[in-house]
C-alpha cells in the first residue's frame, strides 16, 4: 500500500486482538490485527505498529514520523480493576461517615440473587479514616478540619504502606476547601504520594458515588499512569511527534499528560470510541439517527445516537464498582458468536448469557469445547463456510459443530439439526432485539426511525434480521465492521467535561450567580484545552443545565443554545420530559441542579475515501444456506467483499465474505454499496 502523508493511527487493545487502523490523507483506511500481549499491552501496540509499517513498506520511524495523530483505546484501567490488581489505597472521610464506600447504598445488580457477595471493598475499613470537620449543605463551615486527625491518619497510611490516598469529605461538591486543606496537611506528612480529591475527579452531590469515584481513581492510578507514560515515551522515542491521545469514557480524547490526574476517566476507554465511528458514518450514511450493535465473541454493546447526539450517562458500573464520570451510555448483553446454547434441566432451549470465550471458543474450533455456540449454528446453516478464517488463525470444522448441536440441542428437543441451529439463532436474535428495544424504547425513542448499525466481527450476520424484527427498514454495515472502535478513534474530538452542583429555581435564578459560575468553569476549561493545544477559539465550549421538576430525583440535561432564557429553557425541558416520561407539569417548578460545561477541541473530520468503481460482481461461490422456516435451504450466492464497489446493488438472499466479517442479507433485502464502500441494506418486510 502507498500512504499519503500525514496519516492517523488508532489502536484498540482488546482481550484477544490488538487492532490498528490507519487512515491516510487521502482517506484510505488500512487495518492491521496482531495478537494482544496481556502481560504488557504496550508490546502489542508496538507489534501492531511494526506490522503496519511492514505492510506500508516503510521503516517504523518513518511510519511514526508521518503520523499526525495517534489515539489509543486502553483497557488497562478496566483490567486493573477487574483483576483486583490496583494500588493499596487509604481514604479520608468525614468523621461519622467511614462506611458509605462499603454500604454502597445497598445497590445490587440482581435483587433476587441475595446470596451474591459484593465485589471486595477497595479500601478496607481500617484504612478508611475519619477526619473531624464539617461543612453544611451550602459549603459553609460548621467545624474546621482537624489537622491532628489528618496527621494521625497519615501515620497509619505510612505504617501500612499505602500507595495512594482518596479523600471524600461531606459537601465538598459545594466547596472543596476542606478537602484541599486536608490534602495539603496530608502532603506535609507523606510527600509524593498520589492524592485524589473527590471534589476534583467527580464534583457530584452524593458522598457514595463521589467517594467511590475518588477511590477508583486512586486505585487504578499507580498502575495505569506509569504504563501510559512509558508507552508514550517509547512511541516518542520511535518518532511520534505529538503525545499519544487516549479515548475516555465520554467518547472524547485526552492526552497522556492530562489524564494522569484522572485515570478513572479511562474505565470505558475502548467501547466509547464507537461514538467517533458513528460520527464518521453520519457522513457516509446521510443520517444522524443510529442504533449500533457491536457484536463480538461474547457480548453485544448497544449504543444510540439521535439527531447526532449520542446517549450519555453520568454514572457507570464497572465490575460492580460505581464511577460518577460522564460516559457514553452503552447497554451490554451476553450475546455474541461464542454464546453458548443448550437445553436446561427442565427442557427449555437457551442461548446465553454464558459464552465460550476466545479459548476454547466455539465447538467448531476444535479446541475442546463440546457445547454448541452461535458460531456453530451459523456454520451448520451454511452461513459460514468450513475451513480457515482470519488468515488461518482459526479453522472451522463443520463436523464438530453438527455434533455439538445434535447432542446438546437437537436430540434433547427432538428437532432436526437445522431446526435446532436455526432456533439458537432466533433466540439470540430475539435477545439482540430486546437489547435494542431497551436502549431505545426505555428512553422514549421509537427504534423504527433509526438506522441499525451492525458492527463487530459477528454483527453483520445478525443486522438485517434484527432490523427486520425491529421494524426498521435500514441496516448499515461498515466495511470495517470488525474494527469499529479503532476506526472511531481516528474521528474522536478532544473533550473534557466540567460540572458544578448548583441549586436554583429556574424562573427565579440569580442570573449573575449563574454567569459567575459558568465563567469559572470556562476559565478552568480554557486552561485545560490550552494545554491540549486547543487554545482560544479552537476550543468549543458548550453550556448545559441539569433540570428537574421540584421533588424529582433524576435530572434532564438541556443544552443552552444561546443565553439564559428561562422561557425557552422551560420549553425545551418540557419537550424532553414529555418524550422521556410521557407527561409534563405545566407551570411546575423547575429546579436547576447543576451547571455543566463541555470543552471540545475539534479534530479535523476523517474524510471517507471514494473507492474506485468496479464491474458488476459475480458470486465467487454458491452454496445452500438455511434462510428461514418458510424458505428452508436456498442455493445462495456468495460474494467476495473485495469485488463489491460503489453503486453495486444486489438482491438477497446473499452472503458477503469480508476479511474480518461475514454479511448476511435475507430474501427480500437489497444490499447496496454506497459511495464510500460500505454496505447499505434495505430491509424487506418481515
Amino acid at each position, binding site marked *: 500500500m502507498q500512504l499519503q502523508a500525514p496519516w492517523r493511527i488508532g489502536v484498540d487493545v482488546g482481550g484477544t486482538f490488538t487492532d490498528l487502523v490507519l487512515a491516510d490523507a487521502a482517506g484510505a483506511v488500512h487495518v492491521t490485527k496482531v495478537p494482544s500481549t496481556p502481560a504488557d499491552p504496550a508490546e502489542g501496540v508496538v507489534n501492531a505498529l511494526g506490522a503496519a509499517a511492514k505492510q506500508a513498506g516503510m521503516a517504523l520511524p518513518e511510519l511514526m514520523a508521518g503520523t499526525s495523530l495517534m489515539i489509543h483505546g486502553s483497557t488497562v484501567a478496566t483490567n486493573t480493576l477487574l483483576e483486583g490488581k490496583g494500588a493499596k489505597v487509604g481514604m479520608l472521610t468525614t468523621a461519622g*461517615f467511614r462506611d458509605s464506600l462499603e*454500604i454502597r447504598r445497598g445497590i445490587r445488580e440482581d435483587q433476587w440473587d441475595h446470596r*451474591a457477595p459484593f465485589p471486595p471493598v477497595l479500601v478496607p475499613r481500617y484504612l478508611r479514616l475519619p477526619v473531624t470537620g464539617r461543612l453544611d449543605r451550602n459549603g459553609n463551615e460548621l467545624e474546621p478540619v482537624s489537622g491532628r486527625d489528618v496527621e494521625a491518619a497519615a501515620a497509619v497510611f505510612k505504617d501500612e504502606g499505602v500507595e495512594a490516598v482518596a479523600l471524600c469529605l461531606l459537601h465538598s461538591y459545594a466547596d472543596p476547601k476542606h478537602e484541599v486543606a486536608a490534602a495539603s496537611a496530608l502532603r506535609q506528612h507523606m510527600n509524593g504520594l498520589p492524592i485524589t480529591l473527590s471534589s476534583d475527579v467527580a464534583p457530584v452531590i452524593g458522598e457514595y458515588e463521589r467517594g467511590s469515584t475518588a477511590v477508583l481513581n486512586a486505585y487504578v492510578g499507580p498502575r495505569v499512569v506509569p504504563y501510559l507514560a512509558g508507552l508514550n515515551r517509547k512511541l516518542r522515542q520511535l518518532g511520534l511527534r505529538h503525545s499519544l491521545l487516549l479515548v475516555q469514557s465520554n467518547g472524547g480524547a485526552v492526552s497522556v499528560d492530562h489524564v494522569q490526574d484522572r485515570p478513572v476517566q479511562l474505565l470505558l476507554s475502548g467501547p466509547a470510541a464507537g461514538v467517533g465511528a458513528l460520527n464518521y458514518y453520519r457522513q457516509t450514511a446521510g443520517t444522524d439517527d443510529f442504533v449500533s450493535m457491536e457484536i463480538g465473541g461474547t457480548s453485544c454493546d448497544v449504543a444510540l445516537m439521535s439527531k447526532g447526539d449520542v446517549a450519555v450517562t453520568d454514572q457507570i458500573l464497572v465490575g460492580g464498582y460505581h464511577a460518577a464520570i460522564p460516559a457514553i451510555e452503552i447497554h451490554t448483553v451476553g450475546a455474541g458468536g461464542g454464546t453458548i446454547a443448550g437445553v436446561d434441566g427442565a427442557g*427449555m432451549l437457551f442461548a446465553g448469557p454464558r459464552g465460550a470465550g476466545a479459548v476454547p471458543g466455539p465447538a467448531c474450533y476444535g479446541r475442546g469445547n463440546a457445547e454448541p455456540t452461535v458460531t456453530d449454528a451459523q456454520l451448520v446453516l451454511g452461513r459460514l463456510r468450513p475451513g480457515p478464517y482470519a488468515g488461518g488463525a482459526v479453522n472451522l470444522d463443520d463436523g464438530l459443530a453438527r455434533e455439538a448441536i445434535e447432542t446438546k440441542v437437537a436430540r434433547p428437543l427432538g428437532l432436526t439439526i437445522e431446526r435446532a441451529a436455526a432456533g439458537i439463532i432466533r*433466540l439470540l436474535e430475539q435477545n439482540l432485539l430486546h437489547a435494542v428495544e431497551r436502549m431505545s424504547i*426505555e428512553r422514549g425513542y421509537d427504534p423504527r426511525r433509526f438506522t441499525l448499525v451492525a458492527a463487530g466481527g459477528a454483527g453483520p450476520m445478525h443486522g438485517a434480521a434484527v432490523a427486520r424484527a425491529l421494524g426498521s427498514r435500514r441496516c448499515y454495515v461498515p466495511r470495517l465492521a470488525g474494527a469499529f472502535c479503532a476506526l472511531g478513534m481516528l474521528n474522536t474530538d478532544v473533550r473534557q467535561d466540567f460540572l458544578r452542583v448548583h441549586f436554583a429555581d429556574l424562573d427565579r435564578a440569580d442570573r449573575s450567580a449563574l454567569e459567575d459560575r459558568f465563567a469559572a468553569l470556562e476559565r478552568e476549561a480554557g486552561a485545560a484545552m490550552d494545554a491540549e493545544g486547543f487554545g482560544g477559539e479552537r476550543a468549543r465550549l458548550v453550556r448545559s443545565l441539569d433540570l428537574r421538576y421540584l421533588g424529582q430525583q433524576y435530572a434532564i440535561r438541556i443544552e443552552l443554545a444561546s443565553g439564559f432564557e428561562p422561557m425557552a429553557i422551560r420549553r425545551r425541558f418540557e419537550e424532553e420530559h414529555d418524550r422521556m416520561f410521557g407527561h409534563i407539569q405545566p407551570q411546575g417548578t423547575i429546579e436547576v441542579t447543576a451547571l455543566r460545561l463541555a470543552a471540545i477541541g475539534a479534530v479535523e473530520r476523517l474524510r471517507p475515501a471514494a473507492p474506485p468503481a468496479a464491474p458488476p460482481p459475480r458470486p465467487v461461490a454458491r452454496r445452500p444456506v438455511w434462510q428461514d422456516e418458510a424458505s428452508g435451504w436456498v442455493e445462495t450466492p456468495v460474494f467476495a467483499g473485495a469485488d463489491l464497489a460503489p453503486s453495486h446493488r444486489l438482491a438477497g438472499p446473499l452472503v458477503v465474505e469480508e476479511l474480518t466479517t461475514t454479511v448476511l442479507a435475507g430474501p427480500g433485502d437489497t444490499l447496496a454499496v454506497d459511495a464510500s464502500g460500505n454496505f447499505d441494506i434495505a430491509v424487506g418486510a418481515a
Partner: protein
Amino acid sequence: MTALDPVQLALTQKRLDHIARQMGWVMTRTARSPIFNQSHDFSCFIASPDGTLVSQADGIPIHTGGGGFSVRAILKAFAGRIEDGDVFLLNDPYVAGGNHLPDWVIARPVFVEGRLAGFACNRAHQSDIGGGAAGTYNSAATEIFHEGIRLPVLKLIERGALRDDLWQLLMINSRTPELLDGDLRAMIGSTRIGADRIAALVREAGVETGLALYEGILAHADRRFRAALATLPPGRYEGSDMTDNDCFEKKDTVIRVALTLDDNGLHVDFTGTDPQMRGFKNSSLANTYSAVYMALASFFEPDLPRNEGTFRSVRITAPEGSVINARPPAPMTMCTVFVAHEIVHAIWKALAKADPTRACAGWGKTIHNITSGLGSDGQRFVMYHWNAMMAGGAVPGRDGLNQIGLLIALGGLVVPNVEVYEQLYPTLIRRHEFRTDGGGLGEFRGGTGVEYEADMQVACDWTFRGEGLGYPTGYGVAGGGFGAAGRMSVETAEGRHIEAPQYGLAQFGPATIHASSPGGGGLGHPFDRAAEFVRRDVRDGVVSLESARRDYGVVLAGPRFEIDAQATAAARQQRSSA
C-alpha cells in the same frame, strides 16, 4: 393437543418476560409519584385467561404470588361479562384478591379473534388512599375501615369508555388526587402497551397455540421447581418466627410453619400459627402466598421462572382467623412488610433444617421512623430515615450485609446519600456508620447494622415504625447467633430524652434522633470462623477485642492485632471441650 415447537416455546417465554419489563419502563417513565420511578414499588405481570400468572419479570419480590389472586377475583366477579376494551381495578384483600389496600391492581383483558387470550396487569402502591393517616400507613388502625378506601373488583373502563363517576369517587377519597390521577393513568397506559404486545404475540402464534404456549411455559417452571425440591431430602421440617407486639402493646404473636416434602410436592402448613392481632400487621391470603413463594424462590436458584407454574407443586394451608389469613375487618396495611418478614423467616428456618448448606440467617427488622414538618420554603416535607436501615443475615460463604434494604424486597431499596438528604430536608446528619458487635456471631457473621444520628432542625410530627426495636430479630442458624436488637431514642432541644416506641405518633420541637439499627443473624459456630476474618473485623472496628476473645476464641495482640495462634488454639479448645 399437538406437541409445542420447543423453539417457539423458548422464544415466547423470553418475549413475555420482555413485555412485562416493557410495561415497567412505561410505568417508570409515566408515573407521577417518586415511589414508582425511584423505589419501583410496583409490579407488572401477565396472566393467562384462567388467571394463572405466566410472567412477572418486572416487580418486587413480595408481589411474587399475588397476581393470580387478583385476576381470578375478576374472573369470578365478572364471569361472562368481560369484554374487549374493559379495564378492571381492585384493591380489597378480603373480597377482591388484593394484598393490602394501598396496592391497586389495574388489569386489562386481552382479546384475539374474539377470544380471551390473557390479562396485562399492573399492581402499584398509591401515594394516598384516604383512611386515618396520610400516606397509607395508619399505625393506629384496628379495622380495615381505618386504612383507606376499599375497592371490590370494578370495571373502571367499560368497552373503552372511562367511567367518570367512578373516577371522581376515587379522586375524592385521596389526599393527593393529582398524584393518584397521574399514577392511575400511567398504570392504565402500561397495561395498554402490554395488552397490545400480548395480542400481537398470540395472533402470530394463533390463539390455540398461544394458549398452549402459556401452558408450556408454566409446565417448564413446574419441572424446574420440582427439580429444585428434589435436591432436598423428603421429610417434615418446622420453623417459626414471631413479633413481640401487636402495634399497641407487648404481645407475642408466633408464626408456625411445617414443610412436608414428599412425592406429591411440598405442603406448607401454617396450622398452629397465632390468631389475628389488633394492629395492622395481619396478612391477607394473597400476601401470605407471596411471602411463601418469595421465601421458597429466594432459597433456591435466583433465576427460577417468576410465574405460578413454579409453585404448582406447592400446597399451602393457611388457617382462617390466624395472623396469616385474617378475617374481616382486621387491619392489614403493614402486612407486606410485617408479618411477611416473619413468614419468610419461618420458612427459611424450616428449609435450613432440610439443607443446612444453603441456610440463610435472619435479616434485622426495620426501625426507620418518619418525620414530617414544614421546610424553610413553607412546604410540608416527609422524611423517611432510611439511613437507619438494618443489616442482612449471613449465608454460607458470606457474612451478612452490614446495611441493606427491606427483606421483603430482598434489599431492593436504596440507602440515600446523606448529602442529598441535607439538601432536601431541614436536617443535619451526624453519624451513619457500622455498629460494633452488632452482627450475629457465627462462622459467617451477621451484618452489623449502623449507628445513626440526625438533628431535625424544625418541629416535626414523628411516626414510629420500629418493629426491630427492643428485641433481636435477625436470627442465627446452624450455631450462629442473633444480631443485636435495634435501639432508638429522641433527645429534644430542651434536653428531654424519649425512648422510641415500636409503633406510635408524637410531636417534638427541634430534636436529635439516636438509633442503632438491628444486626443480622450469624451462620455456623463462631469458633469455626477463620481467625484471619476475626482479626480483620477487629482491625475494622466492627468486632471488639473482647468479643473476639470471648465469643470467637481468637486472641489478638499488639498494635496490629496479630493473631496469637497458641492462645487462640487454647481458647477454642476450651470451648469445644466444655
